[in-house]
């Protein structure tokens, strides 16, 4: 799957379009800018970190780097699901401040790589306090299905990460 991502990488030159990697969480479909995706791996056991929110599953060794793994289902309060060998971890990277941060997100399955035209991206509607849309950048329709585009930079900015840096 990661190869597929690489092949599509080059086609990103067009300013008006965006390539996204789409994946599912339960019944919902989400997408991230493919340039933020470093690789896709299968789930493997993590080392638990004590005293952190339950959606921060722990850390793994990614070729020598310590990388945290976040369960996106739990993060979005979509309920828990058991991890199987088919569970997928999408490794994302984003620039926060002046450094690159790498993080893995646990998703149900990766669906597709799709080209979307930027002008077709709609702003996500506001649901007030009922539904949190803080990580949603916009909505786009792919083959009649709605895909929610995630704001990776915001997602990777863990709660309290930057506040605790000074302490």
């Amino acid at each position, binding site marked *: 799957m990661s190869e597929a991502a690489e092949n599509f990488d080059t086609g990103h030159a067009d300013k008006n379009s965006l390539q996204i990697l789409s994946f599912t969480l339960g019944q919902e479909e989400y997408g991230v800018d493919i340039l933020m995706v470093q690789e896709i791996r299968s789930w493997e056991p993590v080392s638990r970190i004590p005293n952190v929110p339950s959606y921060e599953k722990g850390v793994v*060794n990614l070729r020598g780097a*310590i990388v945290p793994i976040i369960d996106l289902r739990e993060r979005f309060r979509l309920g828990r699901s058991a991890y199987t060998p088919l569970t997928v971890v999408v490794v994302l990277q984003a620039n926060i401040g002046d450094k690159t941060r790498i993080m893995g997100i646990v998703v149900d399955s990766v669906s597709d790589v799709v080209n979307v035209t930027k002008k077709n991206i709609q702003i996500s509607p506001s649901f007030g306090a009922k539904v949190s849309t803080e990580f949603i950048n916009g909505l786009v329709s792919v083959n009649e299905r709605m895909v929610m585009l995630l704001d990776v930079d915001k997602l990777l900015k863990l709660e309290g990460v930057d506040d605790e840096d000074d302490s």
Partner: protein
Amino acid sequence: MAIDMAQFHQVFFEESFEGLDAMESGLLNLDLGDVNADDINTIFRAAHSIKGGSGTFGFTSVSDFTHVMETLLDEMRDGRRQVTRPAVDVLLGSVDCLRDMLRAIQNGGEIDRTSVAEHKAALDGVVNGTHDMAREFPAESEHVGADTTMMTTMEEPAASEMQIVGWSIAFSPHLNLLKTGNDPVRMFRELAMLGELTSTVDMQGVPDIYDLDPEECHLSWKLKVLGDIASTEIDEVFDWVEDDCDLAKQAIYSAVAEPAPLAVTEQTQILKPASIEPITIPTVAQPTAAEKEPKKEESKTSASKASSSIRVDTGKIDTLINMVGELVITQSMLSLIGEHFELNKLDQLKNGLSQLERHTRELQESVMNIRMLPISFVFSRFPRLAHDISSKLGKKIELKLVGENTEVDKTVVELLSDPLVHLVRNSLDHGIEMPELRRAAGKPETGTVILKAYHRGGNIVIEVSDDGKGLDKDKLRAKAIEKGLIAEDAILSDKQCFELIFMPGFSTAEKLTDISGRGVGMDVVRRNIQALGGNIEIISELGKGSTMAIHLPLTLAILDGQSIAVGDETYILPLGSIIESLNIKEDRVNRVVGKGETFLLRGEYLPIIRIHEIFNVPKPKATKLTDGLLVVVEGQGIRCGLFIDDLLGQQQVVIKSLEANYRRVEGVSAATILGDGSVALILDIPGLVRLANQ
């Protein structure tokens, strides 16, 4: 044509600082009674390179300054001048001044002109033979100008009489001028900055195009610079090529008629390849002025880069390349086995794998080795310190350096230098007595301070020892009581007495001198060393001297760890923090207010921290205190017992930052990767205590 000179600045600064270090150590090692021409030569060469380099890059203030130093050194080298103590001191002062200047330029800051003028005046004083001037250093700055005029009058006796309106210069470079890396255009550009420049090129020497070697310089020039320019300024431009050209210069006085300049442009057509450069001269002055602006900014950026570069011994790189070569061979061997694998090749596979393992380990070692620097990087500054302090205090001190080639991690080297300076200063200032006192005590007049570095196990030990008066236990004790640091009836062992000096707000010096007692106390020294994961101990005998021994881990990237098990999880404890581990009996456990558990160990009540509780570990194997183990640990002065399931094993672990991609976690200092590829957290004892208290 415009080469971006800024890209070479970094190299220039590095080399200049190295040159200054070489000059400094050369000056300090000069034996005044028997001056070796080679030694002076080394110092001279360093000064000469700095002067040349700074001239090339347009740092004229530096090259002017170095020029005076060079003049003095040149005379010493030729034996025309005696090498005297005051002259050496002035030169040492100048080295410092030069270092400040370069640093200021590197960081894009302002040069301290008054200090430069003072040092230059002192140098001029020595050059002009007025040794008294030098002794009264820093001399008055009026002498700055005196030198330049004097030098001019020496060379051009008639010149002072008449108004100089310019110079005519005949400049015929030798064939190899370009090969030595000199560029006439650059020199002409400098001349053009001094005054209005007209040049006439003589191309008679240029051979036929078929015989022409483009790297040879066949041209010669007649130059004319107009303006009120000192002879030395002209010399400076050509200074770097003195030996590679024939140079004749003549002053033009107000009455002298100008020789008709040749029409330069006409000659362009005849020979394009070689003569293009000289012909651009009249237009050059403009771009150089424009170039200056971006240069300043560039030097700032390069300054920030400076701290992150490292000089590596080529031998180490070669080893590394060899190692990688071996690794590649092993890899191809393994892939060959894998291609047509049959069971009878199993032995081969096993061999290959063990080879791979060995090479990987060696590779890891040599990579770590690259970060290792000899401790002499820190030690090298001390001879100067000892020299300065001994002359200031009137003490006789000999500094011995032992084990300078002992290697330590770069980060340790950098962080070690401040604490070490403090310790050496203390020894020089407080440790060694005045010569009279030493004689009265039956000791040789010259005190000895030994700086010694050596490896012991996975640690490096650095000792600062002196044969001075040693620490006075009673005095320390009295002082501590006076300052209210200990109770009057406190019972202290010898060691505890000595350790009093590490307490904040403790200073035994009767009065503060400008050498010690400047606010950085021994407590800061100890804190810095502990921050590096090391410790410091004192051995002292009254009247005989004292030794401060610093123990440090060789590298901050690797840690000796003890793996422990709690539930299904593995954690690492720094081995150095573990005091002991034991099985405990229920009757030794006491509960404070029914909750907080303490354990009585040799008369001391230790708080018990249950790791499975503070970390919420699922399914711990031991929940009853008698089932598990208690590891007594100490970190930053805090002692406690950690309750865990079991001890697993000791191993060296590579420290990996948890914060790089994640965040800081209380109770955890970093993470590491275990043999099976999984991640284990390294525990932070003070953090655990904080967690337990919440």
